[in-house]
C-alpha cells in the first residue's frame, strides 16, 4: 500500500452522492495510503497503555490516519433545474498523517 497521498478522480456532481443532480463535473481529490512513518511517541505510549489495560481499547486511536489537512475552495455549479448550488469542503487539497 502506497504512503498517504492525494488521489484524484473526475466525477459528475450527481456521482458525488450528496443528492444534487447536475451533469457538471469536478476533480474529486481524496487522501489514501498508509501512515507508517507518521507515528509519534504519543502513539507508541498510547498503544502500550491500551495493551497494558491502562486505557480502554477501542476508544482512543493509537495510529495516525491519512486524512485531508486542507480542503479545496467551495465548489459552485448549476444543477439540472438551473439552480446554482455551492458545496463546501468536498475535495481534499492536501493530505497528511494526523
Amino acid at each position, binding site marked *: 500500500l502506497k504512503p498517504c497521498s492525494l488521489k484524484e478522480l473526475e466525477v459528475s456532481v450527481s456521482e458525488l*452522492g*450528496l*443528492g*444534487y*443532480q447536475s451533469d457538471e463535473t469536478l476533480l474529486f481529490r481524496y487522501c489514501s495510503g498508509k501512515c507508517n512513518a507518521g507515528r509519534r511517541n504519543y502513539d507508541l505510549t498510547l498503544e502500550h497503555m491500551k495493551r497494558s489495560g491502562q486505557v480502554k481499547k477501542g476508544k482512543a486511536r493509537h495510529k495516525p*490516519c491519512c486524512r485531508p489537512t486542507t480542503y479545496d475552495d467551495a465548489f459552485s455549479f448549476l444543477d439540472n433545474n438551473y*439552480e446554482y*448550488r455551492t458545496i*463546501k469542503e468536498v475535495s481534499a487539497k492536501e493530505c497528511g498523517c494526523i
Partner: protein
Amino acid sequence: LYFPQMEYSESVFVEQPAGPLLQIHALKEEENETARFSLFKSYPWFQIDESTGMLSLNRSLDRKDFALLTNGEPLKLKKLFLQVAALSSEDHKHYVRVSLTLINATAPPCSEVKPRQLCFREEDFAPHIKENKQPGLFRNLRPLPLQQRCPHINITYRVEQDLSPLGDVYPFELDQDTSELAVSVPLDREQREEYSLLVRCTVTTESMVTQVDQPLLISVHDEDDSAPCLRNGSDTTEAVVEFDRKEGAVLGRLLVYDADSTPIYPRDQSRNKYAGILLTKDTWIKETFKIEHTFKETNFNHVRGTVHEYKLVLNRSLPTTESRSLQLHVLVNDTEFQGPGGSLVLHFNVTILPVSIVFANTSFLFRIQNNAAQFAQIGRVCVENCLKFHGVSITYKLEPADKNLTAVAKACHSAVGIAPGQEGIVGILYVSDPKTLRRHKCLELQYTVTAVNKLNTKRARTLLTITPESTGRAPLLTSGGRALEEDCPLSCAENRLRSDCEVCGGMGATDGRCQWRQGSGNALTTNYSTCSPTLQTCPDGQCDVVENMNPAICPQDCTKLDVIGGHERGFLSGIKAGYGTCYCFPGIKCYCEKDDISEPMCDDVCK
C-alpha cells in the same frame, strides 16, 4: 430652430470627387426664425453652405489624407464626426452631429451600385417633427453623392401613406424636383405621434426600370400643451385608518391624467413636471400625513400619455387612541403647462378610528402534557383583531389569578412563560420549567393575562387556564432498567433514525416524545425526513421566537451553521430542502444524508 433628426450620416470614398454630400435641414419654432449654418470645426475637405445647409466635399480625400485621419492605423474605414451648428435669429446656436464613414477604397462604378443604394442612404435616422410648430422641409430622400456620380440614372420618388386607422390624410408633401419632403401643417402629437409612410423610388436606366420601396417612420415630438385631467375619474376618495396604523401605510390613492408624455429621463430635468402639495398649515396634519407621487407612461388611443398617482400615506405610526375625521386637499400642478387649468385639487376624506385593546374571549383554555419538554409551545393568546394590526405593539404578561398561592402552587405557575411573537402582536405560551410541572404533579394553573399597548399603556385582561394532563404512558426502560430517555440527545433533531426519534424526548417536545417526519423522493426535497419536537411548528420555514430561544429546539428552522450533504438553506436560516434525512448536532452543524443506510460501512481503514 430644431434639427428634424438625431444625427445625419453619409459615407465618403477615397478619391471621391468634390460635390454635395448631405442636405441638413433646420425647422422653425417661431415664424420669423432663419437659420445660418456653420461647421463647428472646419476641415480642409468639408464645408457647409451658410443659408441652404448643404454639406459638401470641397476637395477629394486622397490615401495620404486617410492615413492622417486614421493615425496611420491600417483601417479599412474610419468614422469621423462633424458638428453642424445652426444659428437662429435670436443668436441661439443648435448643434447636430454628422457621422461620416470614410472608406479607404475608391467608389464602385455606377453599374455596380444596387438600385436600393441609388434610392436610399445606407444609414439614416428617422425624422421627427415638433408638434405645434411651423411647416417646412425636413428631409432630402436622395443620396446626393450618387446623384452627382451617376447623373445618367433617373431616380423619381413617390410617397404613399399606409392605411391609417384614424383615416386622416397625412400632412406631408414631396417636391419631385428636389426629392425633398415637407410637413405642410403644424402637427398635434396628442392626435397622432407617428406617421408611417411608404417611399416608392423608381430607378430608370437605359435598359431597366426598377422600383424600390422603403418605409419611413416620422415621429412627432411632444411639448407640454395638455393640462391635467381626471378623465371621468374622481377627485375625491375615502381614507380610513383603523388596524393598519403603521408609518408608511397607504390610506388612499387618486389618479390624474395628462395627455402629454412624461419622460422619466433625465431624472432631474424631467419635462412636464408635476407637483402634489398638501394644502394645510396644521402641523399635526403635516407631521401625520404625506403625499407620495409617482407617474408612469400610459396609452390614450395609440398615443403615449401619462398617469400620475397620488397616494395619501401615514408619515408616522398613530396611537390606538387617536380618533378624528378631516378632509385633506392636495394641489396637483403641471408646473410646465403654460395654458389655463394647469392645476386641480384632490380631496381625501380621512377617518381615523380608535382601536380598542380587548380580549374577545372571556377566558383562554389550554391543555399541556405533564411530560412536555422545556420550550414546548402550549398555545397563543391574542387581543381582538390582533392579526390585522400593523404598527401596534402589544406586550402580554402572565400572573397567577390567585394572589395568595402556596409555595408549590407558585412554583407550578412559574413553570409557564409567555413570549412576544409575530412583530409583538401575539403572545406565545411555552413550558419554561418542565421539571417543576412533573415534580409537583401540578394541577390546573389559573392566570390573569394582561395585554398592554406599548404606546399608550391601554390594557386588557382576561382569565387563562392551563390544565396539565398525564399521557398515561410509562417511560421506556433500557435493558438495565434505566429510563431510555436518559440516553437521548438534548435535541430531537439529533436523532437520525425513526427508531431513536420516537422513543426519545427533546427540547420543545409537547408530549415528551419527538415526532418523526418520513420524507419522500430521491433527490433534494422540502419534504426531507427528520426528527422534530412538534411537526406542527417544526420544520415550517419559520424560526419563531420560542424556537429561537435555544439552538436545540428546532435547528431545522433556525440553524445558521454549516449543513453538510445535499441541502438548500432557508432564506435567512434553517434547512429549506434536504437529501434523505436531515439531522443536527445543535451549535455544531447539520447533516442531510441518504436515509436507507442498511449498515454503516466501516472497512479496515475507518476503525
